[in-house]
């Protein structure tokens, strides 16, 4: 293709460099907030768009690679652009267009110094994420990976005056670092041949590992990337860090950064490791299921809107991992068509999640702007004062709840199809596992709907729980643009699945060696395997619903005389109803808390009926924190207390150490 005769990698690198430049420019131009907000961020969005475009053009082309003259002397930076990385680059680009547009409106109100720094960190964050996707050797990957962690850490701790936010940042970076260590170990296991040049991905592809070492590498990678993705039980940082960050940053972290972890798992499992074992898939599947249910359960009981979204991200990561697990199982048992189906579902879902989750997060951002309130218990009735935000958010909510004809449903549909087609695996245990897994998926999807009704209903509907909410203003121009972009993406992904799947086919072709294709001749019908088995056409669906609705409206107009008046809400004979009597978020989550009681660590004080000033306080905690994390902490503390006895301050003791060392060495020679 002559249009991109110059290797697309050059273009991508230039674009990434441009991001960095923008960041630096922001740092320099601290004085003029206007420029940063209304020039730099939109330019960043433009760069994202171009990035996505380039990646899209090179999707399905032959992989191109490039060696940059940086990095270690014997291990310069290797870069490679293949379908997998292009796909995730598209994801990155499309999502960040919206977020950056939103950001230019959102960050407007910060003070210059913070804004300048934030602009730098933000664009470094974008650049490092893109580089992670392009890296083709362990060193560059690690550098980009940790740079991503570091920049996002600084973003998370933007308003570091608040101790909780510092705590969140600490937890985040610590777990990220531990994860990075695990990833490094897994690369070390996978290294091909000896010498430092064995750390290029090509060498790793070449290395054929014994199944034991391959498993070790896979487990390490799963641990490391899982730590970044918020996989159970490494998720504890996520609900702390995502809410702490400014909303656009939360959006990026939830929607894109977590996907880089998914990318890593896919890259290691299907690309770097030549062979897979069936139990990897089972492990991933089970972990994924646990994560999904756990996440959505905790989302249901949250009172803080951003924490709620963070937990829902955990749920979605769980679903993605389920998809990966299925893919591995099918691939191992040679059912590549099914593997392709499961993988398609996974990739599709990560694309969808990127879109609606960032939409929702930036939506909470503009709510924060309008009201300065994150606690859903103090919101409500915003649909009247924030029409734009409410409509766009509704799209996001319906999408994430997985109802047709929006995008969330498509990936869910594909995933369930993968389950339905799965019987006939040689291993009967896995055969038993499959329906249970399907059931759990269905359950968590239904719970997600519950959560989202709570989210939207408590925030936007009902009466205003606080007086101040009357003055809440709608999202500004830029914010609106960003949200609109993402909402459109959701709708588009929902309505044109055939096209999207066609694109994803390139990736599945690369990873599992087959592609889904589309059995239906008609571009309107998505049918993964065969039209008789299953088919779904969102467009017809939409048309039908609209048609029927239109018909209804017409009939009603015809039959009905159309008189309507406003009156007070019916108070059931109890006149003194006020806004505080609506369900709060806690109230809405209460049934879930009651049903899944054993999973939560609940502490609450309920007032007695005779309290003059009754005060209810309830708090649900994550048991895993107490079961898994605190013991480790205490162990280290004990060890170090033990060690520090050594440094006792008495010089005789120190001399004795020298003496003893000497004697011991002399004896053992």
């Amino acid at each position, binding site marked *: 293709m002559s249009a991109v005769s110059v290797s697309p990698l050059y273009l991508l690198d230039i674009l990434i460099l441009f991001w960095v430049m923008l960041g630096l420019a922001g740092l320099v131009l601290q004085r003029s907030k206007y420029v940063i907000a209304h020039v730099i961020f939109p330019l960043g969005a433009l760069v994202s768009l171009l990035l996505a475009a380039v990646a899209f053009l090179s999707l399905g082309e032959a992989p191109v690679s490039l060696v940059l*003259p*940086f*990095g*270690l*002397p*014997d291990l310069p930076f290797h870069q490679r652009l293949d379908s997998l990385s292009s796909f995730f680059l598209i994801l990155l680009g499309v999502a960040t267009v919206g977020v950056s547009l939103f950001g230019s409106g959102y960050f407007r109100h910060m003070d210059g*110094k913070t804004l300048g720094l934030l602009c730098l960190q933000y664009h470094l964050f974008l650049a490092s994420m893109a580089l992670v996707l392009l890296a083709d050797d*362990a*060193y560059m990957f*690690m*550098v*980009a*990976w*940790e*740079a991503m962690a*570091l920049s996002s850490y600084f973003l998370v*701790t933007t308003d*570091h*005056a608040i*101790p909780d936010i*510092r705590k969140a*940042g*600490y937890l985040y*970076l*610590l777990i990220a*670092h*531990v994860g990075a*260590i695990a990833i*490094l*170990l897994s690369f*070390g*296991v996978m*290294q091909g041949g*000896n*010498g*430092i040049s*064995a*750390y290029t991905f090509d060498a790793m592809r070449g290395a054929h590992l014994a199944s034991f070492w391959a498993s070790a590498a896979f487990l390490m990678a799963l641990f490391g990337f899982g730590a970044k993705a918020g996989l159970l039980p490494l998720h504890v940082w996520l609900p702390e860090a995502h809410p702490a960050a400014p909303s656009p940053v939360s959006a990026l972290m939830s929607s894109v950064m977590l996907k880089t972890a998914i990318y890593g798992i896919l890259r290691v499992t299907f690309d770097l490791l030549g062979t897979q074992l069936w139990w990897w898939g089972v492990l991933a599947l089970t972990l994924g299921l646990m994560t999904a249910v756990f996440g959505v359960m905790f989302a249901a009981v949250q009172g803080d809107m951003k924490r709620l979204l963070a937990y829902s991200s955990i749920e979605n990561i769980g679903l993605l991992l389920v998809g990966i697990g299925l893919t591995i199982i099918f691939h191992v048992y040679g059912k590549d068509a099914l593997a392709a189906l499961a993988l398609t579902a996974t990739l599709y879902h990560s694309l969808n999640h990127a879109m609606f989750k960032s939409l929702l997060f930036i939506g909470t951002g503009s709510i924060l702007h309008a009201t300065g309130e994150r606690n859903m218990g103090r919101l409500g009735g915003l649909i009247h004062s924030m029409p734009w935000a409410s409509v766009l958010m509704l799209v996001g909510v319906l999408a994430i709840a997985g109802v047709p004809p929006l995008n969330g449903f498509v990936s869910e549909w594909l995933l369930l199809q993968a389950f339905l087609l799965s019987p006939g695996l040689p291993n009967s245990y896995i055969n038993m596992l499959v329906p249970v897994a399907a059931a759990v998926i269905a359950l968590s999807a239904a719970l997600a709907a519950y959560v989202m009704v709570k989210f939207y209903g408590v925030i936007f509907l009902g009466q205003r729980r606080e007086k101040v909410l009357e003055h809440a203003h709608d999202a500004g121009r830029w914010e609106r643009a960003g949200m609109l972009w993402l909402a459109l993406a959701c709708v588009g992904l929902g309505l044109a699945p055939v096209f999207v799947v066609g694109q994803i086919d390139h990736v599945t072709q690369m990873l599992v060696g087959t592609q889904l294709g589309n059995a239906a001749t008609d571009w309107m019908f998505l049918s993964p395997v065969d039209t008789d088995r299953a088919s779904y056409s969102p467009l017809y669906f939409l048309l039908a619903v609209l048609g029927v609705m239109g018909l209804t409206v017409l009939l009603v107009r015809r039959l009905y005389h159309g008189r309507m008046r406003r009156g007070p809400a019916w108070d059931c004979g109890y006149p003194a109803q006020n806004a505080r009597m609506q369900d709060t978020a806690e109230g809405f989550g209460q049934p879930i808390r009651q049903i899944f009681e054993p999973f939560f660590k609940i502490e609450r004080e309920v007032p007695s009926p005779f309290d003059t000033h009754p005060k209810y306080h309830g708090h649900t905690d994550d048991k895993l924190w107490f079961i898994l994390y605190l013991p480790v902490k205490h162990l*280290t*503390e004990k*060890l*170090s*207390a*033990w*060690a*520090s006895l*050594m*440094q006792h301050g008495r*010089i005789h*003791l*120190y*001399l004795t*150490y*020298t003496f*003893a*060392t*000497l004697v011991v*060495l*002399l004896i053992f*020679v």
Partner: protein
Amino acid sequence: MIDLQLLALLLIPLFGSGMLAVFGSRPWAAELNSLMSGCTFVASVVLAMRVIDSGPQVAFNEQFFIDQFNVFLVALTAFVAFTTSLFSRPYMRIEQHHGKLSVSMLHLYYSMYQLFTFTMLVALTTNNMGILWVAMEAATLTTVLLVSLYRTPASLEAAWKYFILCGVGIALALFGTILLYFAAERVLGEGGTALLWTHLNQVKGELEPTVLKLAFIFLLVGYGTKIGLVPLHSWLPDAHAEGPTPVSAVLSGLLLNVALCAVMRSKVLVDGSLGTHFAGNLMMGFGLLSVVVAALFLSRQKDIKRMFAYSSIEHMGLITFAFGMGGPVATFAAMLHMTVHSLTKSAIFFAVGHAVQKAGTQQMENIRGLLQVSPTVGWGLALGTFAILGMPPFGVFASEFLIITTAMHEYPWTTPVLLIALGIAFASIFGKMQPIVFGETTVKPLPHPPALIPVFVHLLLVLMLGLYMPPYLADWYRQAAALLG
């Protein structure tokens, strides 16, 4: 010619210390100090160029020997000494302003600073194991005076411990040297040449293994005390915490390297003579132990300088481990780590120094929210900390990456230990550093403007080494690594 250059390198600091012994109490003593260090640095660069061009050479009838390995350390030492002198100019002024230092103390400080540089350069460049010992002892003596500069009980105690422990250590090293000589004279005959490293290196195959084993143990324990290898490290945190900050910077940035260089010299001989990996294994063992124990120590520290002293122990352990592993990549990595550690650690100490001066205490719980009062110090400290913790894209990560990957290939079982230790260290230091840099503040502004150019110069260099290593530098390291094998 080489004699001249070497002479320049050695005489400038000596002359400088003489000058400062005379003029040390003048107001411009600080500038003179920096000037001298600057000249030393220039001289070292000239020498380095020369050596890179025309390989290893000896000077002053073989009493001095310069190869890529020690000339790289010479350049590094001179550079850090120079930047430290730049930093110490305002720092010491502020100390004086706070009334911690009298003019006479400053006088002592400046002259001793130059003398210390001199001793280190001698120790690095000498070819004679005996003179090496003498220089090390002299370095100890000068630094003892520097550590006890404040004359506070704490500083006195620290200096005393430092003195006694390193004195004993050094004495043991002398015994090792004597044993070496004992073994050598039977091959090289009596008299001068029997202690010259170059000659020993040629005949190392014939040296008596049993004696050399014994000798190496003494040398390792002796110089290891100065490197700060666990369990010989006890003096190090005290000395770093109680001495003036510039001294802490040069101590952990330079002196430790010099001692390590001495150990390396002996290692080359011993392993050459034994034909086994005896010395290497010992060094690996000590290195691993140091990394683990230091990491455990970190999490309980309350004094900020003490904490970074322990982190120096940890990194020295890592470097020793790498040198112990041997092989081109590991040695390369070790030297790279030496470089980045010196640069980063001294940069951190610079920033810490000003932070401490602002807060008026070394207790970490009283230093808060640096970013609010002086963002430069805050960012310097934050970035330096992340760099020393091995966060990419800083150079420390590059060397750690090389070390760990090599270890995975050579000694897989060590890597989990190392990585866990590094993780613990990360958790501890990062956890302590975050509230110091971020959050609400308690600290107050300074009488004199702080000198932070050195901090950011160092950090930029480290950053560059992480992302891009100039080819000639890489070749230089490679040659040096080849020398050490």
